[in-house]
Structure formats: C-alpha cells, structure tokens
C-alpha cells in the first residue's frame, strides 16, 4: 500500500491552501501528486424559468475555481509536485468517485459534506454517502475552529482505533505506509460496556487480557517498523472513548476502519467511523475494508 496521489476536494468555503499545505508531511511517505477537484452544484447553474441554463454563471464559477486552483498549483509546482485539476458540474459524491477512478488516487481528502436538513433525514449526510461508496481511504478534514486553524502536521500523532475486524488489518497496513510522515501511534481498542456487563468477572478479565495481548501484537508490528507506538485499552461507547483517548494522547488525527454498508443498515445500526466523521473536531481518516 502506498500514498503517492491524493485527491483534494475543495468547495473553497471549507478547505483552503493552508489545509492542503498541512498535508505536505505526506511527502515523506512518498506523496508527490495532488489532484484538485471542485464541484459546482447543479442548483447554481440549473435551468430557470425564463432564463434557461445559466451558461454565463457556469463560466463565471469555473473561472473563479480555475483562478483559485492556479494559485494553489503554483505553490506546489514550485516544490516539484505534479498537480492536475478537475472542475465539474453535478452532484459532489458521484463526481468524487468518478475522479478517484480516473486519476487512480490513493487518498481522498475532503471537508465534512452537508446536505439540506430535509434531505439528510432520508438520505443521510453526503459524508456518509461518500464513506459508504468510496473504495479508497477518505480523510475528513475540518478546521479545528471557526477561525480556520489547522494542525501543522495532522499525520504526526495518530490514534489508531482497532475493533479486530478485517477492516482493522487494512487500517494497520495503511498506517504502516505512513512511515516517514508519522512520529507516534497510539493504538486504542474500546471494549463495550454492555458486553462486559453481560459476562462474569472472570470472563471480563480474560477478555481484557486477550485484548491487551492483541494490542501488544499490533504495537510490536509498528515498533518493528520504527514507529513510536503505545497500546491503550478503553471501555465504554466506542466513539466517545476514541475522542477521549484522542484528547488524552494529544492526537492529531484519528484513523479507523469501516465496512461498506447499505444506507439502511448504516441509518439504523450506525457505525463508529461514520459518527466520528460527522462529529470529531480532529481530522478522521477512514479506511474501507475493501481497499483496492
């Protein structure tokens, strides 16, 4: 697994050049190629009664995006990076997926994508839709505050959330590919409070010992690859405990795996990964089980 090409999706209101520059730490992990994507919503140029298709508006919006991308690209070109750009009109999630396929990117970087409240009720957020459909890792990247502050190197201190599923193995592989960009990895497994309550004290202790052993094994893999890694066992609700652990260990990015699930399954049973993507203040990197 390698990360040489990233797709940087920007609607210009959520992610700016400084967010992109903060990802340049990935160059140490082999990243040398950036694909820009800006999607102009169909609503902005759609047919209007009496005005038809707003061709002039489309030209204007494309020109604005082009000027912005040229400015960003100049900075990266001068650092010896390859930069390409796509400006498209349509729905954001399908466009992200199509450019991901065309450009064969290794990582999708986007801000949290929102829908209108009514649409979210039945279709969920666009972030959830992207996570459900993408077969590449997605980094949900948001400014830490309204003032637009980003961490200098989000890949520096990772919190690796593992649930021992198949996706956990994929996440570990992905983190190993980040060598060079990452200094510290805190490996966290969260035991469910409900599950522990159902079993005897002896069984709970066995479960704890077993989880600690597995955490140690993962830690050894990382240490052997020259990462500074520490294992941690938490108990409680997964997303709450991961956020708590992130704050305790001065994490700069949360990394978790996620199974690709149907919209209904996602809606009714939920997933910790999607919930973190929707709520965490820190950047969240979600690695799908079926990474191509």
């Amino acid at each position, binding site marked *: 697994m390698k990360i040489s090409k990233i797709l940087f999706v920007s609607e210009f209101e959520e992610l700016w050049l400084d967010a992109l520059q903060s990802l340049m730490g990935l160059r140490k992990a082999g990243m040398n190629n950036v694909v820009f994507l800006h999607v102009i919503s169909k609503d902005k140029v759609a047919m209007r009664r009496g005005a038809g298709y707003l061709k002039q508006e489309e030209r204007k919006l494309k020109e604005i995006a*082009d*000027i912005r991308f*040229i400015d960003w*690209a*100049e900075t990266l*070109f*001068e650092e010896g990076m*390859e930069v*390409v750009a796509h400006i498209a009109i349509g729905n954001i999630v399908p466009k992200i997926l199509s450019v991901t396929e*065309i450009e064969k990117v290794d990582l999708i970087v986007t801000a949290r994508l929102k829908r209108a409240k009514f649409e979210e009720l039945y279709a969920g957020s666009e972030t959830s839709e992207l996570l459900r459909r993408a077969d590449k890792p997605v980094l949900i990247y948001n400014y830490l505050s309204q003032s637009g502050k980003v961490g200098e190197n989000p890949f520096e201190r990772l919190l690796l959330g593992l649930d021992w599923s198949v996706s956990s193995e994929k996440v570990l592989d992905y983190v190993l590919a980040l060598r060079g960009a990452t200094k510290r990895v805190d490996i966290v497994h969260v035991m469910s409070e409900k599950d522990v309550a159902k079993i005897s004290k002896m069984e709970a202790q066995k479960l704890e010992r077993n989880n600690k052993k597995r955490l140690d094994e993962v830690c050894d893999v990382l240490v052997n690859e020259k990462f500074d890694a520490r294992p941690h066992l938490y108990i409680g609700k997964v997303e709450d405990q991961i956020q708590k652990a992130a704050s305790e260990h001065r994490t700069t990015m949360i990394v978790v795996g996620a199974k690709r699930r149907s919209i209904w399954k996602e809606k009714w049973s939920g997933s910790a990964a999607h919930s973190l993507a929707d709520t965490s203040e820190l950047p969240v990197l979600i690695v799908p089980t079926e990474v191509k």
Partner: protein
Amino acid sequence: MAKKVLNVEDDADTRTFVSTVLEENGYLPIMAMDGEEGMKKVKKERPDLIILDILMPRESGIKMYHELKLDPNLKDIPVAMLSGVSKRTFLRSQAALTEFGDETVPEPQAYLEKPVEPEDLAETVKKILG
C-alpha cells in the same frame, strides 16, 4: 501541406479560440484535452508545434513538457506554453524537477500568459513556424 499544431488544453472555450486562430492563419489544428492525451497525439501525429496549457486533468503541462524534452525523438518539437500559470512558476517548477533528480531541460520557444489576444497568438505561431 498545412503545418500541424497540437493544442493541449482542457478548457473547451480556449480550445475553440486557439483552433479558430490556427485555421484562420492556415495551420491544421489538432486537439488534446490533457497531458496524457497530448503525449499520445504527439507520438501519433508528430505536430510541427505544440501549444500547451499547464493545469489540466490527468497530466499537467509541466510534466508533459518535461517528458517531451527528455525524449530524444520528441525534444526538437517546438513548444509554446499558453497558461494562466506564470512563466516564473513554470521555470521554478522545471528547476524543482531537476532538484528531484530529473535532467535540466531547455526553456520553451514561447510563453504566453492567458488571456492572449488572437493577433499575439498568431504572431507567436508564425514566428516559430515561419
């Protein structure tokens, strides 16, 4: 026989503009929408001149220019850059590629920053192709 000019450009309006200027001045325009398609057309069509944009999908003009100039069979095809990216950035990017291990390449025959007037484009092409 009219000389062939390959325009590598992702923007449809600019392609139409360049194509019109070329045809009006007696050249045969060939179009490509990105650097990847551009390289294929260069090998297939052997144009007399390439007018090259920089920021495009799939492969940038920076990379395509570098590839052209490092290919012994293609390096003599003249190139006129036509882009919103400044010449200073273009030259710095080529220098950066050299720093990262590639060979130094010569400067393009012409560098036009967008937007360009039709007369200036026609004059540049004439100057290079005679």
